[in-house]
Structure formats: structure tokens, C-alpha cells
């Protein structure tokens, strides 16, 4: 079959320019992570030296482990709360102040992170909470649950309400109807929401630096403090690993949401 629309030269050029703008810095970072030279800007041949260095760096490994734990925990809690909020908002058409509630749920999306971080810090100080793993996890849950809610709610919005009614009509009690029909249909969106929350938590610097305590730095905080003393090529290696991890997560998330939308649509018959 012949392609109906072909890219003109202009389109190709603008696409290349756009992609270069986005990915050239990252590409350079990835290439330099394999640099053998101690100097960041001088090419000294291919080497895995800095990866080796990273795996020997206890502080960095600890920070990475901390970041991963925070990301998994906060993404899981955020997914749970965010999904429940999305279900409540898309179901309770009748309740008063629904628009206000959904507006309030989405406000943190556009709230400057400095404000979120500072207000959480004040809260933790007021509660006299010891700052560390749990405070960062709670802070990241606050940040990411609204993203989860947005993703899940948009899926719920496109779902036909009569599906659940049909399940009830066919013998399901209301909770059962939700579990056996609605949940399988929104599952891909929930997975996508979790992945999104995970990556957001993994790369957050601002909120984490407000809410963490001594001895429990996350990876971005660790990297940032290292860079202030001068960029070591080891940082390039760490960043490349993080990029790889995030790329994998994003690909899975987009596959999941694609699966989700193709299931709900009534595509043309074969």
C-alpha cells in the first residue's frame, strides 16, 4: 500500500532539528559516560571505567537505592489514593462541590515544586517528624497522586457507565461489578499512572531536598551536590543508567495506555 502522506523535505528538516534540540545533550552525555579520560570535556577513548567507579562508590549506590525505594513506595501509595480519588470524582456526578474537588485535586499539577516542598517541610517540622525515607515518600506521594488521578480519571471518563450496570444486571453486587468489569478496563491506565509516578519521584530534586534529612539523600540530591564540586565523569555514567531505566519505564507506560485505549474503543469490524 502506498503511503498517503509523505514527509516533505521541510518536514524532515524540522523533525531533525526538533529531535536534535531534545536529544543531542543527552546523546553527548551518554557518549561521554564511556569516556576513558578523567577530564569531562576531553575524549580519551572508549571505556567502562566510570561505570565501574560508580558501582564502587558506596554513597552513590546508597543514594540510588534510597531513590528506588522512595520511587516504588510513593508510586504505589499514590496509585492507590489517586485511583480512588479518580473513581470517586468520575462516579459522584451528583455530589455538591465536585468541580471544586476535582480542581483542588489538580492544583498540585501546576503548583511550583518549591511551594509544595516548603509547605511539606513546615508540616513535618510542626509534627516533629524525623526527616528521612518516609517524609520523602509522603512528599512524593503528594506530588504524584494527582498525576495518577488525571490518567485514571480520563480513562474512566471514556468508559461507558452502562458496562457496570450491565454487570449488575447480570448478577453482580455493585462492588463485584466494579472489580470484574471496571477494574480490568482501567488497569492499563492504573499501570501507566504508577509508571508516571515512579519516574516523577525518581527524578525529583526540589521536593526531596526540602523533605529529606541527613544521611538519607536521594540520587538527584547526591548528584547535584557532587556536581557543585565539579563534574566527575562518574556522574555521566549514573545519568546514563537513570536515562535507560526511565526510557524502559516510559515505553512500558505508553504501551500500557495504548492497550487501554484500544480496548475501550469500538473499532471497525475486521
Amino acid at each position, binding site marked *: 500500500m502506498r503511503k498517503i502522506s509523505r514527509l516533505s523535505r521541510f518536514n524532515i528538516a524540522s523533525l531533525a532539528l526538533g529531535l536534535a534540540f531534545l536529544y543531542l545533550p543527552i546523546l553527548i552525555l551518554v557518549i561521554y559516560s564511556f569516556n576513558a579520560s578523567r577530564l569531562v570535556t576531553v575524549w580519551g577513548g572508549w571505556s567502562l571505567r566510570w561505570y565501574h567507579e560508580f558501582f564502587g562508590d558506596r554513597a552513590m549506590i546508597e543514594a540510588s537505592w534510597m531513590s528506588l525505594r522512595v520511587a516504588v513506595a510513593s508510586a504505589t501509595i499514590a496509585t492507590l489514593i489517586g485511583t480512588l480519588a479518580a473513581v470517586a470524582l468520575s462516579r459522584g456526578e451528583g455530589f455538591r462541590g465536585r468541580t471544586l474537588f476535582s480542581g483542588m485535586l489538580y492544583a498540585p499539577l501546576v503548583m511550583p515544586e518549591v511551594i509544595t516542598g516548603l509547605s511539606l517541610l513546615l508540616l513535618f517540622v510542626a509534627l516533629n517528624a524525623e526527616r528521612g525515607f518516609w517524609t520523602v515518600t509522603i512528599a512524593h506521594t503528594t506530588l504524584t497522586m494527582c498525576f495518577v488521578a488525571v490518567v485514571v480519571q480520563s480513562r474512566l471518563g471514556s468508559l*461507558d457507565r*452502562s*458496562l457496570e*450496570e*450491565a*454487570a*449488575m*444486571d*447480570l*448478577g*453482580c*453486587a*455493585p462492588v*463485584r461489578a466494579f472489580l470484574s*468489569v471496571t477494574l*480490568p*478496563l482501567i488497569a492499563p491506565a492504573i499501570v501507566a499512572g504508577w509508571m508516571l509516578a515512579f519516574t516523577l519521584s525518581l527524578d525529583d530534586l526540589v521536593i526531596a531536598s526540602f523533605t529529606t534529612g541527613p544521611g538519607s539523600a536521594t540520587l538527584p540530591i547526591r548528584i547535584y551536590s557532587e556536581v557543585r564540586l565539579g563534574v566527575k565523569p562518574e556522574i555521566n555514567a549514573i545519568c546514563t543508567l537513570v536515562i535507560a531505566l526511565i526510557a524502559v519505564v516510559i515505553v512500558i507506560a505508553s504501551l500500557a495506555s495504548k492497550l487501554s485505549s484500544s*480496548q*475501550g*474503543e*469500538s*473499532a471497525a*469490524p*475486521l
Partner: protein
Amino acid sequence: MTDELPRTDTAANAAGDAHPAAGEPLLRIEGVAKTFGTFRAVDGVSLDIKAGEFFALLGPSGCGKTTLLRMLAGFEAPDEGRILLGGKDIAQALPHQRPINMMFQNYALFPHLSVRDNIAFGLKRAGMARADIATRVAEMVALVKLDGLEKRKPDQLSGGQRQRVALARALARRPQLLLLDEPLAALDKKLRENTQGELMELQRRLGMTFIIVTHDQEEAMTMADRIGVMNAGKLAQVAGPRELYEAPRSRWIAQFVGDVNLFDAESKLRDGHRLVIGTRDAGTLVVAEPRQPVGESRFSVAIRPEKVKLSRRGPASEAGHETAINRLDGVIADICYLGGTTTYKVKLDAGGVVQASVANSARLDVDAYSLNQQIVAWFSPDDCVVLPS
């Protein structure tokens, strides 16, 4: 194909023990009302439906027919009144506690399940044995002629096939009562006509009670034993198709079901078994004495377009009936050719307009009337209906 299916199935229906006593209606709706905010969607509806009946709820959109159906299914709880199924009040029961199933307007097929799993869904919930489910699903698939498509997902089916899956899924539990919400609205005309026939066939064969909601009066007339016309939350008339068409109870029903010519009455005189009525737009009309006496209130004379005859000179007058025939002189103002029939609009000398629908019984009609032609429209007094305004 299986020919004999038991009428009810206690294994599939938890509340399947509700059998009406002899002579009792299967379903009795008593003064049911439902209000949304300040809008009274259903306003005091009472209705009896017999077992094995094919009943249609007909009405324009927003008349409350769907709300009434949803109350029968259990998706809405009535604010007032009772819903008795086999003598048991189910008005407040949840959907899954009722031996009633519904076929949804958009079919509401589960997109993540195959045709087979969609049909088996309700059977699994009823706790049927695995082997019995397989037998029942095969039975249903054969019944709605979906053989070979069991493994497909709903989005791999055509509109007509989806409609069949929805029907099979709703029938699989062998409900005492099947509700159908505009079941054919999404199908094109030809397919719809075929499906109407199949639904009627199925209903007769299964001996099941069907309640269908539709806004399409032809669909209701074709399929239903009885039709309940709803308007503004109330049941305006419950009657068989012929009675509804030939003896509508009000002006609104006459206009909603089919086309009608209406003439407002200004005076009336009794003449034996007939009434002589003076109208503003069509002169004096003679009509048969209505069954219900016309009070002093305002009323109109209604005549269906296909009962209005046209001729160049007027009817050959029968002796003795000469004065009884309604003769209206006028000119043809509009011609609408519809294939099987042609609708003429005749502008009457008396001021009004009368529509006449004439069957095109010959392919070449040299005598067809033309625009602006002088014509006589005439009809018999017995074909007129007197309706309160």
C-alpha cells in the same frame, strides 16, 4: 437449533421463585413516580403486564419511558409506588437481586471479554456448573445465530452481530422479564426490519415476557401486542396497535402515532347517530357519534391521510347517504412522491389544508393529479375521530 427452552430457570435466578398466581399479571406497576431535582420524570404510572406479553413503551425522548424501564431493572429506585413481580414488591431491590435482565441501548458488551465470556458472564455469577454454562452458551449462540464467532471480542463484530451478543447475554439467564432499551436504534433500516421479525419470533418461541422501549412508532406497532404511549412522565394510552392508531384517546396521541389531519370544531349538532360539526378550516363535517360523549369542552375532528380520498368530481353519491359524505373542495398545493404512496396536500376553499395519502397501485399513472389542480377530497363519517383538544 434448540426449540424448547424452559420458561424460567431457578438455577440462574436467585429470586426466580416469584411465580404469578393464575389470572394475576406477571408485572404490576402501581402509581410509580420518580423525580430528578424538580423534574418529574415519571409521574404516577400504573400498568399491568401479563406473562408472555410483548409490550412496548412508546414516547418521544424525555417522556420518561427509559426512566421507567430503569426502575424495572433496578438502576433507579422509585420515589413513590410499588413494582410487583409475581406478587412480590421489588421496587427497592438491587439489580442483581431481580429475575429481570436488560438489553442496553448501546449493548454495553464487556470489551475485554470474548463473545462466549460475555454470554457466560451472568451464568457464572449465578453459580452454574461449568458444563451447564458451556451447554447454555452454545444454546444461546445457536439461538441468535452467532456460530463461529464465540472467540471474537466485541470490537471485532459488526453492529448487527453485537446486537445479537447483547440479546444472547440478556437471555442466557432466562429472566422472567426481558427489558429492551431501544434495541434496534443503532441498526440500519433493512437490518432493523429483519431483526424486528427475529425478535418477535424469539419471544413467541421462548414464551418470555418482553418490554421494549422505543421512540419509533412503526417498530412498536410491528412488534408489540400492546403499546403504552408515554408523554411527560404519564401513560397517555395503553392499547393494541390498531386501537391506538384508529381510536387514539387524545389529540396528542393522534399526532404522535402516525400522520393525521385535525380540524378544530366550533359548533356541533346531533343528527341521529351522527354529529354535524362546524369547523373553522374545513366547513361542516359529519362524523359518527363518538363512544365517549363529547362534553362542552373544545374538541377537534381527526382524519388519517390514507382515509381521505381524492377525485376530480367527488364520489358517486349513494342514495340516502348523500348528506353524510364529507366533501371538501380545494386545489392541490403540494405533491410528495414516496414510492409506495404519494401524499397530496390539498388547500381547501374553506381555508384549511388536508393531507391525503394515495397508494400508487399502478406503475404508470396517467391520471395522477398535478399541482394547482381543482380537486374534491372526501371521506366517510365513520373514518373520523372526535378528540378532545
